[in-house]
């Protein structure tokens, strides 16, 4: 009896939520849309792109939104009546309808470069994904690293200074990765050797990094910009042939080195973590360190290595901020990306591929927010800027699927 009521309720409430979303689409967007106006979505990143040009997508605004609202309400009713098995698909449909109708509403009577936004989503997701990968690799070995933000900040600054002084971006890249490794090694040393609370150590790293980078910035970088803080950025590399594919080409295959490295890392880490002896050891150490120790795995060694590799990945993420995108360092330029990365890691269920996919959602929100400012919607830009942070909080509540962290996550290991 009880199971039946809870079953009906578990169908009913999501259904109502979806129907309300559908009505919201209608109330927020459809009513404020002029009839006979179209929204134009650009499908070519720019005229100079190598990709084959395809025609733009033109949507009649009001009709489009009505259709999306109806589709949403339909799925809500379906959920209430029958129930849809896959929660992921359900959320996907609702989120897509809402975002799409928002875009149509915001673009009515104007044109909007869709592919440009997708491309910038990937670019903006890059530092978040790298932070998330750093989190995955250390937390799979049960070390929580909340100092990723600070690590990236220090690496970003180290990268731009070394690249400017040496006039070589690759030197900057290597220095950034080493800096990240060094900071992570310090964190690992603190939490493994001295058993410092992992959260406290991470926060200390963040505060120290903010202070140190701002100190160096106002002491040296602001006065001698050309000497220290003007490195230039990695060029865009087009991959032959693949970059000619419409839509996908410019999004995936016309990027800078850091973005390619990130995509490569995702694949490599996924394979290492789940198909190699090292990955097995890492996961054993993260789930049940005592058992791993009994089997002869050096728990401390595995943790050190994973945390330091994670730090190097975060270092690469730091390099993205300066030599990967703007070519100079600004104070506190990471703006919470390290923490958003941690949310992406949790949402991605501590998997490299999952972490990357959820980083894309954050990247999309971030890039949407920028494009909306350019389009000039009536929403104040400050509220659009809040979007990524709000999405992070929603993701963390676990409405969209709870995941279990590695069992020993955050706990120091005492060797007997």
């Amino acid at each position, binding site marked *: 009896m009880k199971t039946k009521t809870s079953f009906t309720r578990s169908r009913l409430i999501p259904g109502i939520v979806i129907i309300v979303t559908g009505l919201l689409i209608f109330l927020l967007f459809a009513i404020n849309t002029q009839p006979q106006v179209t929204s134009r979505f650009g499908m070519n990143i720019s005229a100079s792109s190598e990709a084959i040009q395809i025609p733009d997508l033109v949507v009649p605004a009001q009709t489009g939104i009505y259709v999306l609202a109806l589709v949403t309400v339909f799925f809500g009713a379906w959920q209430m009546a029958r129930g849809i098995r896959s929660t992921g698909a359900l959320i996907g449909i609702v989120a897509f309808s809402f975002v799409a109708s928002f875009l149509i509403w915001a673009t009515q009577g104007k044109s909007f470069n869709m592919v440009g936004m997708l491309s910038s989503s990937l670019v903006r997701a890059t530092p978040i994904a790298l932070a998330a990968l750093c989190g995955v690799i250390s937390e799979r070995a049960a070390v929580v690293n909340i100092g990723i933000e600070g690590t990236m900040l220090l690496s970003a600054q180290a990268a731009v200074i070394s690249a400017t002084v040496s006039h070589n971006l690759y030197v900057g890249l290597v220095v950034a990765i080493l800096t990240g490794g060094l900071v992570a090694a310090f964190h690992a040393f603190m939490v493994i050797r001295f058993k410092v609370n992992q959260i406290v150590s991470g926060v200390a790293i963040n505060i120290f990094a903010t*202070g140190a980078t701002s100190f160096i910035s106002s002491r040296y970088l602001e006065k001698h910009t050309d000497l220290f803080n003007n490195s230039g950025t990695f060029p865009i590399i087009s991959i032959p042939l693949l970059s000619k594919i419409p839509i996908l080409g410019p999004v995936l295959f016309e990027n800078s080195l850091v973005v390619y490295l990130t995509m490569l890392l995702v694949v490599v880490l996924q394979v290492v973590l789940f198909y190699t002896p090292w990955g097995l050891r890492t996961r054993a150490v993260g789930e049940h360190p005592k058992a791993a120790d009994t089997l002869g795995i050096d728990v401390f060694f595995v943790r050190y290595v994973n945390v330091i590799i994670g730090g190097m990945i975060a270092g690469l993420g730091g390099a993205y901020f300066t030599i990967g995108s703007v070519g100079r360092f600004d104070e506190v330029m990471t703006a919470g990306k390290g*923490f958003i990365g941690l949310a992406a890691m949790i949402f991605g269920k501590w998997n490299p591929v999952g972490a990357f996919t959820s980083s894309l959602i954050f990247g999309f929100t971030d890039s949407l927010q920028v494009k909306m400012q350019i389009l000039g919607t009536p929403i104040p830009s400050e509220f659009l800027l809040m979007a990524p942070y709000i999405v*992070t909080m929603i993701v963390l509540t676990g409405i969209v699927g709870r995941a279990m962290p590695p069992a020993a996550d955050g706990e120091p290991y005492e060797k007997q």
Partner: protein
Amino acid sequence: MTEKPIQPKKEEKAPASGQIRQALLVPALAVLTGLIIGAIIIIITNEKAATAYGNFFGDPLAALFASWEAVATAYGSLLVGSFGDPGKIINGLGILFSTGDSSKFIRALYPLSESLVTATPYIFAGLSVALGFRAGLFNVGAEGQLFIGTLASAFVGYSLVGLPWFIHLPLAILAGALGGALWGAIPGYLKAKTGAHEVVNTIMMNWIAFRLSDWLLNGPMKAPGFRPITPQIETSAELPRFFADPLRINWGFILALLAAYGVYWLLFKTTIGFEIRSVGLNPDAARYSGMSIVRNTVLVMALSGALSGLAGTAHVLGVDRWVGQGFSAGYGFDAIALALLGNSHPLGVVLAALLFGTLRSGATRMQSMAGIPIDIISIIQGLVIIFVAAPAIIRWLYRLRNIKSDTTVMVRGWGK
């Protein structure tokens, strides 16, 4: 000054003098070590000292002298900026006694007054973080809660006109506390209900608060004119100052001390406090003995947020009397160091806040006199956190034995 009114109550616990010495030893050595490393950074970044070290083997004395000079100038101006110029104070005192003219004396006390003015929000914010620590919660969002509290109290302060002060002032203070409490309660609720980690969520709430305050100061709360500032608050909402201008020390300082006593009373003399500490020490045991984790978590985060809100409220009602962009000098972030340094005990927090209040206000002078960026204080704070959290380093550095290292920080990782 009534700096330690909470001393008498402390005797009820009657710790042996050896314990007090032990409790103070690690924090004191942590601060000392932080200052020493700060001095090293000052020497390294001093151009004169750097050139002298370039010729170290030719003239080692010159190098040492240059380092001494750099550190002495920096820390000397820090001291004068914190406590005032002794010569000027004595001179002012002499004029006061000989002619009865107190203006010189009061002006000489300006740095000391500024130190206490800076210590006031530090006490509130430090208490906020300390209260969270006691319940096993890490409130990194003190800064955002401070922003919201400040804006709420400023709004009540300038928008209500014609009220008598004994209604208006309490209302403005209450608004500040409520604003902060709301901002703290949201992550608290999310933590209690969904397990979303408070560290990430409070940081996200910080960013949302920053954007919201940008919007408010540029829009609804903007005073007529070009600058993004609020109107001046009404006189009836001002916290009165003790002395004539330029001394800005005001009743906010007394309120902060009262709040410290209040937190002490709450934590150690009431059932609620017992529950809070039980939840912090062992949530499972607390739950089995019938305490509500949800209620305690939300309550602590709301109280913690209220204290942070009061940090900004005291500053806006007592010192600035209007709010402009960047009105907080990072009090909320520094508060983490204060709570750790004070071992999450209200008395310890007050002492730590007085220390960092003087450091921070002196650093302003150090910046102008010795050209050392104020960010060095953040560097020192980051180091102090690490040393306090890892007493093993201090023990190792100073060859101490038999120093017990019980920390009151019980922060847990994800989803526990």
